[in-house]
Each structure stands twice: as C-alpha cells, then as structure tokens.
C-alpha cells in the first residue's frame, strides 16, 4: 500500500509538471492583464516542436528549448492582435487553439510513432535515499526541479522588484501604469512572451519527459485545465504547485488504479480531471465570491486616452 502511494505521488509530480509550467506561464500573462485562452494551442505546438527537434538533433534539451520557442511564437501572434491591435482577446486566443492543433497535426504527422531522445530522471545523491520522500521528491528530472525554482523566481519578481510592481499595475490599472511612465504594452509583451515560452516548455515536457512519444492532440485539454488552475490558485504562484500536482495526480490515477487491478472502465476514469476542474472552479468561486483576485484589467485592451 505504501509502495502504491509513493509511486502515485511520484507520478503525480511528473504528470503535474507540464501543468505547472503552463499554469505559471498563463499566470504571469494574466498578471499583466492579457488573457491568453490559447494555452492548449501553445502546449500542443510545444509538444510537437519539442519532440521533432529532439528527434532531429538527438538532444532532448534542444527539444525543450524548441518547445518553449514554439509557445513564444504563438504568444507573439496573440500579442500582435491583443496588445498591438488591441482587438478582442477571446477571439484571438481561441483561434490560437485551432491554429496550434492544426499546425501540430500537419507538421507533426511524420513524427507519429517515432522514438526520440527523452529527458531522464536524475536521482539526487543522498536526498534520494531518504525513505519515502526521497523517492517521491528527489528522483525526478531536472525540469521538475527547475519548475519549482521558477515558481519561487516568479514570486520574487512579482513582490520584490519594481518590474513586478509594473506587471501588477499593468494588469490592475494600465492607465495608472501608463501615467507613472511604465510602457504598458512592453510589460504585457514581456509577460506574454515569457509566459508563452513556459507554456511551450510545458508542452515539450509532455512529449519528451512524461508521455515519451508524440501523438496528434496529445495535450487532451490540459491547456484548458491550466486556465482553470490559474483561477484555482488565485493568481498566486506557490498555490499553482499544489493545483498542478493535484491534477497531475488525477491524471495518473486511472493508470495506477488499472495497474493494481481496479476494474472501473478506463474512459470513465479519464473523465475525472475534467469534472474535477469544473468542481474546483466552482468551489473557488463560491469561497471567494467577494474577493475575486483576478487582475481588474484582465482581458481588456488598453487604449491610451480612450476612457
């Protein structure tokens, strides 16, 4: 029984890591006031590009970078529409989903069923030999560890630096930021692109470390779950870790239960994360009805001088 729980928790962290990257990416994007509904599209492009580049170069780390840049490029398209042209962010975000699914399907066709080099776990000396915790926490791959560092880093930027204040101001009251001499569009572009990169890395992690293969549509709605996780974590980076691992756990639960001979049909178990996401969203809304922590200017284009 303990062995089952240990392996479930270990796998939860692995399954939660792509979610964590994408959730953090979307979170800093939203903190600056830009709603990028295209997470699913960015992730799938990251997954495809990451796999393809690892396959071509033989180096999975180049794959991870490529995944990040794929996300960044799609994010840039969103930026062009939502920041430069200031059009409806919902529409351009939704179209990114379709664009990402289409492009990854078309370009990724030749990589289906291929084998590429993957990211391997690293056991941290000493720590990994701790009982129970060692296996859960310290036998993961580098990207798991770095995702936690990035979480701390984002928290630090937001709360301890003047750039963090600028991000919060751009997301809460862009006009205030503007009149304080902050270049709102630039701040939003930076957050969107960095966020897009992280989302893309999340996608690449999926194909290069978690699933270790590429299939069309393999993100299977994870991007949307991440959008919900941002709300669930109340735009607080450290809470995203909890949310991501929780949903990673739900994701692997079906495999793990089947492995120990549980007989609930696979498809019904696969529904759990989606239903759970809705329930979790609902709970956070009811709980925080009067303290909606979303950035006030989220999703609203900022036009200087047009009030």
């Amino acid at each position, binding site marked *: 029984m303990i062995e089952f729980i240990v392996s479930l928790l270990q796998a939860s962290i692995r399954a939660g890591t792509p979610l964590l990257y994408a959730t953090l990416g979307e979170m800093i994007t939203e903190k600056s006031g830009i709603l990028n509904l295209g997470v699913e599209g960015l992730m799938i492009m990251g997954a495809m590009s990451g796999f393809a580049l690892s396959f071509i170069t033989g180096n999975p780390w180049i794959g991870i970078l490529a995944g990040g840049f794929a996300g960044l490029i799609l994010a840039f398209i969103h930026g062009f529409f939502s920041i430069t042209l200031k059009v409806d962010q919902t529409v351009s975000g939704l179209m990114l989903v379709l664009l990402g699914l289409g492009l990854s399907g078309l370009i990724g066709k030749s990589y289906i069923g291929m084998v590429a080099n993957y990211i391997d776990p690293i056991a941290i000396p000493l720590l990994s030999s701790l009982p129970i915790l060692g296996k859960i926490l310290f036998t993961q791959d580098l990207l798991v560890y770095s995702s936690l560092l990035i979480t701390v880093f984002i928290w630090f930027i937001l709360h*301890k*630096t*003047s*750039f*963090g*204040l*600028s991000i*919060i*101001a751009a997301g*809460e*009251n862009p*006009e*205030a*930021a*503007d*009149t*304080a*001499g*902050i*270049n709102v569009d630039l701040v939003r572009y930076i957050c969107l692109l960095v966020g897009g990169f992280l989302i893309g890395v999340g996608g690449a992690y999926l194909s290069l470390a978690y699933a270790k293969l590429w299939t069309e549509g393999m993100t299977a709605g994870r991007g949307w779950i991440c959008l919900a996780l941002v709300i669930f974590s109340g735009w607080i980076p450290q809470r995203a870790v909890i949310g991501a691992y929780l949903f990673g756990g739900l994701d692997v639960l079906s495999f793990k239960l089947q492995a120990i001979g549980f007989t609930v049909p696979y498809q019904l178990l696969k529904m759990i994360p989606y239903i759970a996401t809705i329930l979790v969203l609902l709970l956070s809304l009811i709980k925080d*009805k*009067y*303290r909606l922590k979303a950035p*006030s200017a989220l999703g609203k284009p900022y036009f*200087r*001088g047009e*009030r």
Partner: protein
Amino acid sequence: MDVILEMRNITKKFPGIVANKKVNIKVFKGEIHGLLGENGAGKTTLMNILFGIYKQDDGEIIYKGEKVEFRSPKDAIKAGIGMVHQHFNLVETLTVWQNVVLGRGEFILKDEKKKLLDVINKYGIKINLDARISTLSVGEKQRVEILKALYRDVELLILDEPTAILTPQETRTLFESLRKMVKSGLTVIFITHKLKEALDVTDRITILRNGEVVRVVETAKTNEVELAKMMVGKEVVLKPIKRQKKKGKKVLKIENVTALNDEGVEALKSINLVVNSGEILGLAGVSGNGQKELEEVIVGVRRIEKGKIYLDDIDISRMSIKDRIKSGLSCIPEDRLGSGVASKLSVVENLMLRDFENYGKFNLDFEKMRKKAKELVEEFDVKTPSLDIPVSMLSGGNLQRLILARELSRNPKALIASQPTRGLDIAGIEYVRKKIVDTANSGTAVILISEDLDEIFHMADRIAVIYEGQIKGVFDKDVVTKENVGILMAGGSL
C-alpha cells in the same frame, strides 16, 4: 516673472469636433494658474496634450525656454511635469508607497519611505504610507496622487478638477497645501469649472470656451459675474425653479435597508428614507459613501440583505426588476453609458428598452415602435441625425435626453435620478433640471442623488446626507446651511 510654460496655437481635432482651436496659454513660474471653462470647453484636452497623452494636430509647446514634444506621460514626467487626473490612476491592490514608487526605483525594491516622509512633512500631507489604496477615502486617494507627483520632483503640477469629489472642508485643506507648494517654488495649473474656486486659489486665470481662449485675467482684478460671462458667452443666471409645494402622501418608503457592496462589505447600514409624492429629496454625500448601492438596491440590481422598500405601500424589495418597473419605478442611472443605454443599439431600440414587450411577443411591431420613438425624440428634443444610428454616436447631453425621454414618459410614481447633470453643459443642465422638476410637479416622488451641493440646494425640498452608508440627517432645505451639510458629508456631527 519667468515664463515656465508656453503653449502656442494648439489645435486638436477629434472625429466630429475640434477640441482646441489655436489655443495660446502662458504660465509663470511659481503661480497658481487657473484654467476655467465649462465641461467640453477643451481644458482637459489641452492639458492631456501637454502631458503627452494626446498629440496636437498643430501648434508648439515651449517648456522652460525649449521647444518640447512629449510622446508619452513618461517624457512629461521626466521633464518635471506632473498631472493629477479627475479619475485617479492608482492601483487599488497596492499600498500607498508602492503606488508612489511605481515606475521608478531600483530593480530590486528598496525602502523608499524615508524620502517619502520628507515630502510628506514638507507640504503637510496627511497619509499612511502602508495603507492599501482600496481602503482609502477619495480625499486620501487624491493626496496619494499629489504625493506621486511631488516624489517625482515635479516643477509644474496640473490638477484636473481636483475639488469635484471633495467636501468643502477637504477642499480647504487642499488649497492650503497648494499654497505651500507654490511658496517653495512649484507651479500649479488648476483646471476647474467652478468660479468661486478659481477666484479663491489662483493668481491668474485663462478662460476657455468651445476650445478657444476667451481671455487671460489676473484674479485680483476680476469678479464672479465677469468670469461667468466670459465662460458661458452670455449672461447666465440659473433660472429659478418653480416648485408647486403640495404635501403629498408617502410614495417611496425605505426601511432599515442594509446591503453589501461588490467586495462583500456593508455599504448601506440600515437606511431609512421616505419620499412623498410631488417631492424632491436630495441625497447629498461624497461619492463612494453608498449612493451607487442605494440606487442599485432600489432599482433591484443589488440584493437587499435586510430591510424593506415600499412603493405605494406595496413591498417591492423582493420583486423582480421588471415588476418594479411595472409598478411605476423609473431610474436615471449614474452610469449613463454603462447602465442607461446599450450603446451599440439604435436610438429606437434604446428608447424601447423597457417597453418593447408591449409591441407584440412573437411579431414585434417595428413600425409602431418607430412612431413612438419619433414622438419621444421630438418631445424631448433629442438631437440625432437618424433613429437608426447607434446611440454611441450621440453626445452626452443628447444621451441623457434620450434616457429622460424613456424614463419620464412613463409617468413614474417614483424616480431615482443619480448625478443627472454630471458632465453636461449649461443648457443641458438646465433642461435636465427642468424636466426632473416638472416630473415632481406632476406628482412623482423623486430621489435626487448628487455630489453637487449647489444642485441639491437648487432643486431639493428636503436634504438627506449620506456618509459611510448611513443617513446622517434629513432636513428641510430652508432650515439647513450648505456649511452644515458639508460637515455631515465629511463625517462630522452638528
């Protein structure tokens, strides 16, 4: 005296209007320069050009002897110009000091409070640096804005209608701080449409009308009547209002009403008000003290936590909005564009917003609706090129006439009029006031919510003062002074 700023031949056009026509203005170092004009005279546009928010179509700006062109507020701030807008530009979730250092400071934030405390002490500004903006009163927020400018070492400070949201007492404190500032070498441009204040605080005044400069005067050598004439272009005396005083029956009764605001905090605390038929009850108060919530609670878009509202002895506090309208409630909402009209829809559609169901359920009679709309447009003198254009194309005054047409033509039993003349020109103000008074004369019970004490004293029969969600007193107009109402508005007691 040194000229610190000169704007020459500034012209700025917006689609449909010319906001500034060859405007010339000269400001001396160390003075408080008034920029006086009606709403829409082009004062704010001119200053927004100076501050780098808009770019002029023509003309040049000479600042401290050099020709300058500010592409954004950032450039203006760098050059030593600060602006406090009518709407505050503060980030509500951050603290006072965070707002002040916003856009400045080292990458890693350091404690800047010492420098801030120096500024605070120098000009005698009262503010708690660690308070979150969302917990501050309007007057305090304004101080944060001024502090922001001072922290950036401004030499020229622009204040856009700074007193509009202040109580008489807060206004006096502000004027004292301003005088301290100019004494230590700062220059202030003071935008206002209130004659008395211009006379009170400025050294010189530039008067704007319809986007053009009328004249520049020295404050000491002018008077209220002369200024008013220049500002409006003709002799204006606000027409006295004809009221038919009848002691009517109680129409609208608000009993112990408690309600929460959007943050879940009690915004109305056991409010009691009675309005009789044919009576105007003026609700005075600084904005943000529960007026918005009161409007919403009566209309029915906000839930009542406790208490009851009666319209003609019928309890409407749990009724649907539609049923309240049917029982004779009308509303001129504070937020005209947000709550009063659907700006993408046409004039006809907006006029029919409440009554379209009377024109058929499955086969709407558009002909009949147009006919009725045409009558209303004529009766209320709404100036529109067509009945089919979206109302976003109408001016503020015409928009308000459209709302009046829709709300008053239904002969309501009770009317909530919230800030009905805000942002209108003098003709518009007079029209709206007359229509509301006519409505009261015909027997409607009216609640007039206004931040403009003059307006309340001009129109109301009785005056109630709201402060932090409580009614601090209800008086007959003839037995109370503006000064006393001001004290109550600021939270004091008599």
